[in-house]
């Protein structure tokens, strides 16, 4: 379906980009050299290939100071996390590297954390490499950057082999005005770079962020965005990719979404003539978290169970202190242990899934395929351009996304079983049968149009 773009100017663009003052500490071929010497266990793609019966576990975490980040890294490694996160601060995410560097200096002077994550470019790739000395697990870059070219160059120079993000999932929910077309084209560069630095046995792994705003996003929209990001990456040569989704509050819908993601991904890759190994990642509840420990633990346990039942390849865990601020190293380590224990209790249980989940999966799949066809079948134009137009025309519409190009006309509510249903599709084309089913499932719930009703749906885990 798509013609793989020729990037004769990729190396030219890269040479220019490498002149950036945050990247000049290492030569352009630094990542090639490092990645060829890194142990296989440091590669996310290899970890996926060798995983056991349970999903792999990845906590979250990022601190401004190198020492704190090192402490977190060691604590997480000891707690048997399968992936080590490196969460980036918000100034670096917006390519405001100078401000990140200034605040890092203040943090170093005062010992106070003035950044909400690790400022990778302010520390530099050489220091960041040292963070992971003695660690034999893959490192995952978590950020939220619409234009991540410089950050990803530095991450790869640092030996990070899993890059999260994408032109849609890191712009619509994360940015108010960064242009979608530029985000997509700049993420094309990132995908191309990851493909370029991959070898057959040690591919750089890419992962999309399907949680999006984590606020009332209907599952079919998650599937559509994840599949588009998969195709965009595969088109640039990425051979190892994870689609992801997050806990919605409805067990049935979560399991159905997982099934739909797998089947639609396989079908669309086949139809496009593209090839990639696709993994499934599950995010534990990303919405407003309960304040009390009892409810938090229950929610996290259910998330762990869903990860097993949905046959996810990896679960990204939350901590019981989520509602109280940035979790410390100990909370994160506890979260890994709790998730692992809960998952062991469910081992082998995925075969019990059936009935209602299959019906829901079919509905999600039909809606996603219908919308994907509307987005992609618009003539002989490149994929990134199809996607840009889909956003501008309101075909891709993420509830509560702050981006100015997001039409924000699609509305969703929870039905009596807590599942997220479309109450008004806005400009999103959907099959009539799907919409009729959604309205039917909503029943009387659709009549409550009040702000309080919507807030109840959003804050479902805290009320």
């Amino acid at each position, binding site marked *: 379906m798509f013609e793989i773009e020729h990037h004769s*100017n990729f190396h030219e663009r890269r040479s220019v980009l490498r002149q950036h003052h945050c990247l000049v500490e290492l030569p352009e071929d630094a990542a090639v050299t490092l990645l060829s010497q890194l142990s296989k266990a440091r590669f996310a793609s290899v970890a996926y290939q060798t995983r056991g019966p349970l999903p792999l576990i990845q906590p979250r975490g990022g601190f401004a100071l190198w020492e704190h980040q090192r402490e977190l890294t060691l604590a997480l490694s000891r707690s048997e996390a399968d992936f080590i996160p490196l969460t980036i601060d918000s100034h670096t995410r917006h390519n405001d590297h100078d401000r990140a560097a200034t605040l890092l200096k203040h943090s170093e002077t005062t010992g106070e954390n003035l950044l909400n994550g690790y400022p990778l470019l302010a520390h530099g790739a050489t220091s960041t490499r040292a963070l992971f000395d003695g660690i034999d697990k893959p490192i995952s870059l978590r950020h939220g950057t619409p234009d991540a070219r410089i950050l990803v160059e530095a991450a790869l120079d640092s030996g990070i082999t899993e890059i999260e993000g994408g032109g849609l999932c890191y712009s619509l929910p994360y940015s108010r005005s960064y242009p979608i077309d530029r985000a997509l084209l*700049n993420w094309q560069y990132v995908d191309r770079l990851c493909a370029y630095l991959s070898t057959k046995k040690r591919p750089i792994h890419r992962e999309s962020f399907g949680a999006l705003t984590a606020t009332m996003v209907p599952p079919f929209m998650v599937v559509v965005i994840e599949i588009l990001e998969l195709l965009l990456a595969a088109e640039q040569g990425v051979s190892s990719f994870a689609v992801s989704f997050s806990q919605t509050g409805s067990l049935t819908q979560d399991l159905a979404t997982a099934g739909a993601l797998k089947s639609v991904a396989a079908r669309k890759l086949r139809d496009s003539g593209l090839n990639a190994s696709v993994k499934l990642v599950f995010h534990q509840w990303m919405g407003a978290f309960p304040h009390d420990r009892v409810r938090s633990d229950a929610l996290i346990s259910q998330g762990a169970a869903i990860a097993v039942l949905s046959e996810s390849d990896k679960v990204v865990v939350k901590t019981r202190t989520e509602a109280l601020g940035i979790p410390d190293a100990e909370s994160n380590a506890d979260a890994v242990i709790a998730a692992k224990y809960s998952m062991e209790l469910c081992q082998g249980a995925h075969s019990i899934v059936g009935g209602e989940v299959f019906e829901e999966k079919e509905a999600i799949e039909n809606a996603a395929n219908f919308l994907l066809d509307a987005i992609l079948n618009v003539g002989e134009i490149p994929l990134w351009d199809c996607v840009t137009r889909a956003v501008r025309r309101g075909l891709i519409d993420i509830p509560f996304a702050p981006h100015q190009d997001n039409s924000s006309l699609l509305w969703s509510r929870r039905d009596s079983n807590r599942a997220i249903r479309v109450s008004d599709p806005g400009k999103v084309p959907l099959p009539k049968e799907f919409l009729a089913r959604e309205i039917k499932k909503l029943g009387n719930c659709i009549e409550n149009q009040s702000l309080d009703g919507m807030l109840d749906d959003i804050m479902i885990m805290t009320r």
Partner: protein
Amino acid sequence: MKTNLADNILMDLGSTTIKYFRFDGSGNLSDSGYFPRDYERVVGEQAEAILHDELGYNSKNDIVKICSSANGGLKIGIIGYTERFSAKWAEKSAVNSGANVLWATDIDNIDKVPSETVDIFVIAGGGNKSPIFRQSQWLKIIKNTPIKYESIVFSGNELLHEVVRGLWPKIVCTRNVLGEDLNWQGEDLVETLREAYLSDLVSKKGISNMRAFSSVPIIPTPAVVQKSFKAVLDLRTKFYFSTPLLMLDIGGATTDLFFGGELLPENGDLNPRPPINRHVFTDFGVYTSKDSLLRKLSLSHRLSDFLRALDSSCAESRYLRIRENDIDWIGTDFLAEACFFLALDSCYSDLQGRVNLELDRVACVVVTGGASQLCDAPKLKRIANICGASNAKVVLDDEYQIWLEGMM
């Protein structure tokens, strides 16, 4: 070419070139030529030098007829109460009108305003119902700042009109650019600046000396092309184009579109449609309107279609460069193609405030003006195709027949 003209030198003072055609006593074309604009001199001075030094002008024998489009491109300076809202919205209005914004700032940076004279100085600020005491003080500070301008416009809080008229008796007040929810409502300012822009095309400034040479009042170039367009439709010319016909005069400052009433969509009313219509895109030009042209191009939702029509092999890299304002590589031919595309796309997409035409009915698109020397017909044909004019033949007026016809 034989003419029945009494005049023997026809001159066009354009933004990018000055061209002339000379006829002998029998009315035969004896000589023609082009001179690139020398931007060190005002256009009138350069034209006068050409007449004397290059054409050996003889006031007893030679009769000169002049048209001009050379002064397009108003320079605008803007002060807003806030840089983020009022200055920004006034700037948006200025760009939409086709003018070039030299600076746009707030009072905190007023000392950094360049000393260069602007054609129009725009002041904007304050919501319509906001208290005026502090805003009046603010206006007094502006009044006491030495800003050089030709004309002044106020587009702020409408409660301040009396105050501003007291401070600047000749000020023009428009509707506030700032809406109730801080949204943009600058259409009135756009129209005011657009009118000023059009009158500036044949302004006294810079070419007043040429009146002494011209046998008739200096004619605006659009009027010349319009006369020619009518002659073509009336079959009074020696050259023919299929109809329905669309004519584009793409120059340094503007792109003028001429079309017959048959291309206007049916709207159900029984009023006769004007047989000849003109729409001026004051923001599309290859020289003085270059900045506004490129800004519009970079924001066009069909930019990628345009770039693919030109050359699909480098469309993607060009796309990103334009969107990221990396424009050093852009040549005049590309700018002319961009004018052609944006003008047709405006008709095709029915953009708000622009002209909506049934382009699929167009049989011929004629391109005249400076672009006719820069463009390549097959490329323009590909652009016409993506803009819905797929049935049209594209013709370049590369010998200035249309201009000559209009000057006769």
